[in-house]
């Protein structure tokens, strides 16, 4: 980020996601005025909150040149664990639509979901750093194991019909406008931004991802940094799992299938490099918003869902291709 003479490509590479985001918002607002209503804006933000929370954790992991494929399954497992605690067991789990007295208070459910996420994250972090299993493989295993555990825990069926305090987290709009989920997502993003940018740990994450052996020589405990990143993404997946179950008023073992791909796409579209060391929380938030707004706008414009999938895939590839081009032109950028 040092001062150099102006380079158009580098400038665009640095700000492209932000520019595209602004252009997209303006374009959709012109094509469909209802796009820009507060109702729709906050709906869209709420829709991306789950993916966004996990994408923040994924940014830590990807900055260390790692990956976590297990988050979709972990969301289901953590949500179920939270739901089970709230219900106080599997009885009553089909009680629907009525405010059933909770088995346990909602904070305990939330803490349980987060704890399950962190324990699973720590497990994978340990497998990656201690047993030297590549992150791709370790978390691919997690993808299958956590899904299996979730199915086992739930017996296949959903747990639903939570009490008002539980549903509050997914349903309530503060001041009648701003969903709680959105505040959690953006608040956590701000916190993660500070950690990554202004703390020693944050600098170590970049150092380990940029050049692990150099970081090691500089005295950074690389394995500890990597381990902590998987605990962080576990925290995010746990919290997201809880929020998703609150939003849907049901926790199910099949929740979050394929979520990991949405998350990775958002991080990568924001411009965080899969090879580690380059990226930021702000970029990830922009990537999350880009995908969310693209989806929402295309639905509002009644674009066929098949075409939507093609467009989102194309944006992903274009974003990375441009990044590669910019990096090759100016390897030190």
């Amino acid at each position, binding site marked *: 980020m040092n001062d150099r003479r102006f380079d158009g490509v580098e400038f665009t590479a640095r700000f492209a996601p932000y520019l595209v985001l602004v252009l997209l918002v303006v374009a959709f607002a012109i094509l469909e005025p*209802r*796009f820009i*209503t507060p*109702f*729709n804006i906050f*709906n*869209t933000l709420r*829709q991306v909150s*789950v993916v966004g929370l996990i994408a923040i954790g994924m940014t830590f992991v990807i900055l260390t040149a790692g990956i976590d494929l297990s988050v979709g399954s972990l969301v289901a497992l953590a949500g179920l664990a939270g739901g089970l605690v709230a219900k106080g067991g599997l009885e009553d789990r089909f009680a*629907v*639509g*009525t405010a059933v007295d909770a088995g346990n208070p909602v904070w305990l459910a939330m803490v349980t979901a987060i704890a399950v996420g962190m324990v699973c994250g720590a497990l994978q972090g340990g497998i990656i750093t201690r047993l030297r299993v590549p992150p791709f493989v370790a978390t691919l295993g997690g993808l299958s194991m956590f899904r299996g555990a979730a*199915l086992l825990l*739930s017996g*296949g*069926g*959903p747990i*639903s*019909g939570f009490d008002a305090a539980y*549903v509050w987290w*997914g*349903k309530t709009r503060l001041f009648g406008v701003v969903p709680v989920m959105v505040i959690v997502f953006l608040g956590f993003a701000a916190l993660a931004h500070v950690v990554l940018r202004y703390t020693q740990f944050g600098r170590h994450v970049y150092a380990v991802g940029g050049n692990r052996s150099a970081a090691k020589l500089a005295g950074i405990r690389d394995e500890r940094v990597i381990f902590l990143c998987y605990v962080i993404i576990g925290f995010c997946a746990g919290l997201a799992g809880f929020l*998703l179950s609150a*939003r*849907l*008023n*049901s926790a*199910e*073992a*099949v*929740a979050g*299938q*394929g979520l990991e791909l949405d998350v990775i796409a958002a991080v990568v579209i924001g411009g965080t490099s899969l090879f580690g060391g380059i990226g930021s929380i702000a970029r990830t938030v922009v990537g999350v918003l880009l995908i969310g707004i693209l*989806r*929402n706008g295309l*639905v*509002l414009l*009644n674009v*066929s*869902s*098949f075409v939507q*999938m093609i467009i989102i895939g194309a944006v992903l590839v274009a974003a990375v291709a441009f990044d590669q081009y910019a990096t090759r032109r100016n390897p030190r950028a």
Partner: protein
Amino acid sequence: MMRRFLPVAAVAVLVAAGGLSATAHAAKKLTIVASVPSLGFPFFVHMMKEIRAEAAALGDIELLEMDGQNSTPKQSADVEAAITRGVDGIIISPLDSVAMAPALQEAVDAGIPVVTIDRRIDGVPGILAHVGADNVKGGEAQGKFIKDMFPNGARLVNLQGQPGSSPAIDRNKGVHNVLDGDSKYQIVAEQTAFFAREKGANVTEAILGGLDAPPDVIVAANDDMALGALQAVQEAGLAGKVKIIGFDALPEALAQVRDGGLAATIEQSPGGQSRGAMRALVSFLRDGKKPDKLTLLSPFAISKANLDKGERLSELK
């Protein structure tokens, strides 16, 4: 939970009412959203096609077709987008009967009439109507067909659908309702094959390899798994010896029923449901006519004997 089972006759009434209103409709252009769980499955493609055809037949309807892409958050987001657009009505087959409730509650709160097809929604009392088939009865139809085919008892393999999805749970329940408690009918293996053909083949192959003697019947919670099982059975050289029963009456399954590959499949008239739902919604919007809260078609088994009852038989050429 309130459950009323209306006979098929109710559908006929609905159809007739819809027909009348269609002839007398006021020329107001309606915007209607149709949302299905996933257009990746031919079953829902057919459903969407029938909705589209009915909308065209009724006239003056702008139909917005939405694909849930097998994700509850995606389908919820689509419903929210529909509310934003201020559509006149929503026809939806919810991916999940519980998890879709909050989004549909918002639609109802926004004053948008919602009609559900095929799959019901729980805990949203403001839903205008539901038109569907009873999946438990469909499973029971499978069970009864097995009893008729093997009055002296049989050994069965049960291929279950996507764990947690309501059709999988209900169809499985139906099969068990009929066969449990009768010791002549023994389920020797019970596994999920996730509603997918490839998994149906793999799981069946594994089960056949693990059994001392081949089963008499393989009952599958959908046709894709049944067709997968058929492949595995043929490869094991057991073609014709193991009877296979599917569910959904897809064209390919009807062809296999015709040619003897499958013993039967279950018809639950998705096209009839879709058209009925569209007519009910439009007649409510144009003429203020309140439809029946609940219309359930009874699924029935289709074998070689009554193949002509297959809704999608005409797609076989």
